[in-house]
């Protein structure tokens, strides 16, 4: 990949991260070159406010080239008086949301972005509110004036589809089921969805700002509360980022515990998700069966870690519990779960109404998936072998033998089957992890962060790749914590997948992606 990067002025290597600082004239060319010629994937894009260091804002764009473990990070410095940067979205659609988010949170404007509307904030937030700028603050009185239901401060219209026979169906943010809030605006012709615009960020909690308030060691508690069902993966990715930044090396034992629990998390999620899809096809027996297996696995989680969501295990520097001490319990429960899972799969694949409903529903083409940077189950179901465990081996994943399962169809069926295959894969991985003993302390002592040190952390959640990027300030406190959950990349793909399907199939399509709102909205 060297030729593409010869325009880079400054290059800095840190572990498997290659930082290349470019100026604004080269920014587009370098990124486009990586995306088009090297088929690089845009993994995440974010801004930082480093004005206390050298008076500059910086944009970071993280690319990975398939087949390489290295992360190529293009850095664009920006002066405070010219708060704009060339938009990448026209060539790299995956940058679409990131750029709008940067505009909302930092007030840095992407020049030439095709959709300059707000993303994170709805209409009631003042135009000059950029919470992630270091000099931004809000008084208590102003805080009262902030929020939904107050005066419209910046108009935030929906994209309108007009024409004969087109009806608008607004849904949400409070939904009929027990799910998270989000607004969906369907433009339908009869029953067929012509266009869907999701409006999310109802659960925007200012998580990234909150990370800056907490120290690095306490941040793991917040990371575990970003997205409920991926709590452990969030904790693990956050800890990995902080450990890499501080130059800490976790023990083999800690790595083994993290790998095992990551797979346990994947297991209960995948089985639960397959059960939930049955709720979308009105297969009540399948739903109940999936829920029972999931519940038993979550009860195992309590016995192992004290939390049904595997919280409190990760700490910066290692883990707090040795789950291998309860190996018998794990094996016994897995034995039972494997048996039940086989019955469950037989029930699903043997149910004509279920299979008929999920086949050919909610198709996402490989091309769109690649352009939007879709990740995880959704990407693999559309033929993209995107698995961060395989492409960037970490923890003990390089010792385990497994495949990144792919399907070509990109429909709900493919996403179900990917989950089924990964469930089996996870079970065998857990068994393999239990076979050998691991040495070392549970956790190593915490170090301090060097001024302005930074690092990436990543994990494969049940939904897809998850990234954390952390940077310390002069005193070793968090200057910036960026998190990118898999749902953030997959949400923009949902409108493409449901196009041409009927409105009653939307819940099914949505469940097959199983996206986290809280993880997206941050």
């Amino acid at each position, binding site marked *: 990949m060297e030729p593409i990067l010869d325009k880079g002025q400054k290059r800095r290597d840190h572990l498997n991260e290659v930082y290349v600082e470019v100026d604004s004239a080269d920014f587009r060319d370098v990124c486009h070159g990586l995306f088009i010629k090297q088929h690089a994937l845009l993994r995440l894009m974010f801004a930082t406010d480093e004005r206390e260091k050298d008076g500059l804002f910086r944009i970071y764009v993280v690319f990975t080239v398939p087949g390489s473990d290295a992360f190529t990070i293009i850095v664009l410095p920006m002066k405070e008086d010219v708060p704009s940067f060339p938009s990448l979205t026209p060539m790299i659609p995956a940058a679409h949301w990131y750029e709008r988010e940067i505009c909302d949170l930092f007030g840095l404007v992407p020049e030439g972005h095709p959709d300059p509307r707000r993303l994170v904030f709805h209409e*009631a937030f003042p135009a000059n509110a950029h919470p992630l700028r270091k000099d931004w603050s809000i008084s208590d009185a102003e805080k009262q004036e902030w929020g939904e239901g107050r005066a419209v401060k910046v108009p935030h219209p929906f994209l309108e589809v007009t024409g004969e026979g087109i009806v608008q169906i607004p849904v949400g943010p409070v939904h009929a*089921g027990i799910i998270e809030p989000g607004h969906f605006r369907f433009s339908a012709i009869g029953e067929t969805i012509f266009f869907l615009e999701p409006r999310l960020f109802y659960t925007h909690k200012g998580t990234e700002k909150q990370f800056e308030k907490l120290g690095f060691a306490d941040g793991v508690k917040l990371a575990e509360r970003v997205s409920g069902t991926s709590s452990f993966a969030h904790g693990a990715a956050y800890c990995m980022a902080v450990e890499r930044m501080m130059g800490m090396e976790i023990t083999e034992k800690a790595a083994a515990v993290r790998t095992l629990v990551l797979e346990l998390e994947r297991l209960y999620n995948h089985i639960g998700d397959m059960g939930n899809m049955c709720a979308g096809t009105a297969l009540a027996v399948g739903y109940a069966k999936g829920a029972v297996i999931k519940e038993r696995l979550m009860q195992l989680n309590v016995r192992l870690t004290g939390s049904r969501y595997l919280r409190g295990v990760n700490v910066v520097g290692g883990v707090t519990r040795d789950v291998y001490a309860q190996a018998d319990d794990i094996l016994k429960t897995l034995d039972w779960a494997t048996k039940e899972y086989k019955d469950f799969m037989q029930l699903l694949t043997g149910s004509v109404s279920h299979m008929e409903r999920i086949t050919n529903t909610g198709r996402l083409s490989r091309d769109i998936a690649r352009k939007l940077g879709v990740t995880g189950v959704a990407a693999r179901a559309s033929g993209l072998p995107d698995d961060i465990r395989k492409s960037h081996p970490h923890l003990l994943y390089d010792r385990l033998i497994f495949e990144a399962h792919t399907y070509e169809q990109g429909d709900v069926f493919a996403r179900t089957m990917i989950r089924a295959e990964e469930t089996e894969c996870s079970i065998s991985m857990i068994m393999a992890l239990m076979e050998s003993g691991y040495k070392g302390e549970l956790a190593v002592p915490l170090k301090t962060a060097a001024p302005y040190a930074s690092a990436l952390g990543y994990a494969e959640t049940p939904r897809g790749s998850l990234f954390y990027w952390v940077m310390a300030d002069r005193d070793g406190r968090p200057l910036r914590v960026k998190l990118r959950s898999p749902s953030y990349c997959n949400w923009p793909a949902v409108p493409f997948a449901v196009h041409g399907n009927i409105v009653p199939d939307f819940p099914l399509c949505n469940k097959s992606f199983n996206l986290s709102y809280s993880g997206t909205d941050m």
Partner: protein
Amino acid sequence: MLKEIFKNVFTKKKAIPFPEGFDVDPDQAVKVIDFQRKIDTIFHRSLRIRFVDAGSCNACEWEGTALMNPIYDIQRFGIDFVASPRHADLLLVSGPVTRQMELALRRTYAAMPEPKLVVACGDCAMNGGIYQGNYAVTDGVGNVIPVDGHIPGCPPTPTAILLGLSTIIDKFTK
């Protein structure tokens, strides 16, 4: 925090009077100890709950969903989750109530028929939890709508939710 809970429990209680339409004497209800029988008497065997996520991490919702699986099977107590606030007796709210969900929560509350109960589910619904003091949250359900009780936990387990509901109904009938 404690002060706030007491304030909510004691002062706001008047805003939600005892359900007259359910023709049960408060004294009579106090004697009912069994959860099942309590629901039978007070709500005529049906307590309908509307669950609203006001910015939680989704763990509380999954615990709510778990209540309906064959292991906990909340329906056997006559309790069920309903799709519309207009059918609900009790509003179960999770999350620190983000500023962008505040209006939706107020509207959901307004859409419920009297008498109504509000229960905050989880630590962040209580006082903002780990998100306390952030620009984007209102630090708990109590700051937005009157709350009758809190179920602590992050997230509260399905059993804790069930027990919490029982205790709150107990208090409500006294």
